[in-house]
């Protein structure tokens, strides 16, 4: 009987805690979304300046334009 009581109490407590944690995760995700942590997107000019050779300069500029268009 004691074992059954322990089992039932454990399951009830677990359900409460688990749903609470799910709520906190949901809330945390919503808050962070609200804060709007955007990726830092460099300008094509900055990308061109940072790239070392010609091939890399073209690739970096194209990537930067694509990122800004997203």
């Amino acid at each position, binding site marked *: 009987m004691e*074992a059954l009581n322990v089992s039932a109490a*454990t399951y009830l*407590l*677990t359900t409460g805690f*688990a749903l609470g*944690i*799910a709520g906190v995760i949901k809330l945390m*995700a919503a808050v*962070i979304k609200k804060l709007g942590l955007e*990726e830092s997107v460099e300008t094509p000019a900055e990308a061109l300046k940072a790239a070392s050779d010609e091939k890399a300069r073209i690739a970096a500029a194209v990537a930067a334009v694509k990122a800004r268009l997203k």
Partner: protein
Amino acid sequence: MITWESIAGIFQGVGTLFAAPPSVAMARIGLILLGFVLMYLGRKGVLEALIMIPMGLGMATVNAAVMFFDPLNLHGGMSTLFVEPQAGATADAVRNAGELMTILQIDWLQPIYTFTFSNGLIACLVFMGIGSLLDIGFILSRPFQSMILALFAELGTIMTLPIATVFGFNLKQSAAISIVGGADGPMVLFASLKLAPELFVPIAIVAYLYLGLAYGGYPYLIKLLVPTRLQAIPMVSEVKPVQFTAFEKLAIASLACVLLSFLLPVAAPLIFSLFFGVVIRESGIKAFQDLMSGPILYGSTMFLGMTLGILCDANTIMDPKVLPLLLLGMLSLLISGIGGLVGGYVLYWCTGGKVNPVVGIAGVSCVPTTAKVAQKVVSKANPQAMIMPDALGANICGVITTAIIAGIFCSLLGH
């Protein structure tokens, strides 16, 4: 003069077969055959090849390679040179240390078992690898659905506690055994150390055998309980999940890691390992991500499978301390699997048929085994159906619910 004894002394694998009690000899032969069957099923793609091929060969070989040598006198004079999981299982700490040092110098896989298995390191390494492949955006979209599935999949843990007391175990021992139903090795080991240290070694053996059971048995359980028509449901949500940038995912993973470690220190090593992988993925450190998702993940999976097979040694499995725990562990996992699928059905009915019931099996927190098993079964029924993201969400919530239960058991019974 060549006698039967001298031949048995030369070819000891065969000699020990005749010298052992018939039940152990039969178990050895049965386990050798089972090892070959697992390898065959792994090769055919019926079971997970990554685990089953090393496990099958390990199981077959360890049961063949028994010799007249038992340095700790644990198995009636017969043992192997592979691993001795029961080394250091006495109540005397000094004697334990001596036994362990002796065995570490004899058994070639003992260092892997002692330094990566019994402390949960190997599970943490697997978690890091999984984390580095995991997109937490899917989990963040539906935390309640994942948590409900995980709660249903804890049914085995909850029901095994009273069942184990019927087998004659006291309440603390029963609680320690029942945690096997959560299918989370490190958590099982922790609960056992806190609640029933006298059962630590046999529980440690059972705690990792669950992986093999889950890989082997769960696909059949799913096929038995879920008709093919329902297995094929693609799980496409009508509501578009919220999109998170890599920076947002990194921030959420870091916060979730610290928050969950605050709440559940018992699960902190696993939680840290998983979120560490996620953070590395989202922070774009390509070299680390490649290391984690390649060598670390596959290296630890290989040793996990091999050591699991080698633990399936007839002497260990037929040990009177291990056998009842193995049976209770299997029962617990069976009930948890059924519970998870019931949870899947509940969500299927509540959402008007939009949730594939198979995803429920992933509530059993055997990360990522059950998620992979679920996806594999679903892919066979409908190659277009993708339930992996939802399954991984349920998997991770399973770790959380198991940690909560372990914490509650330790608080209620640990004094």
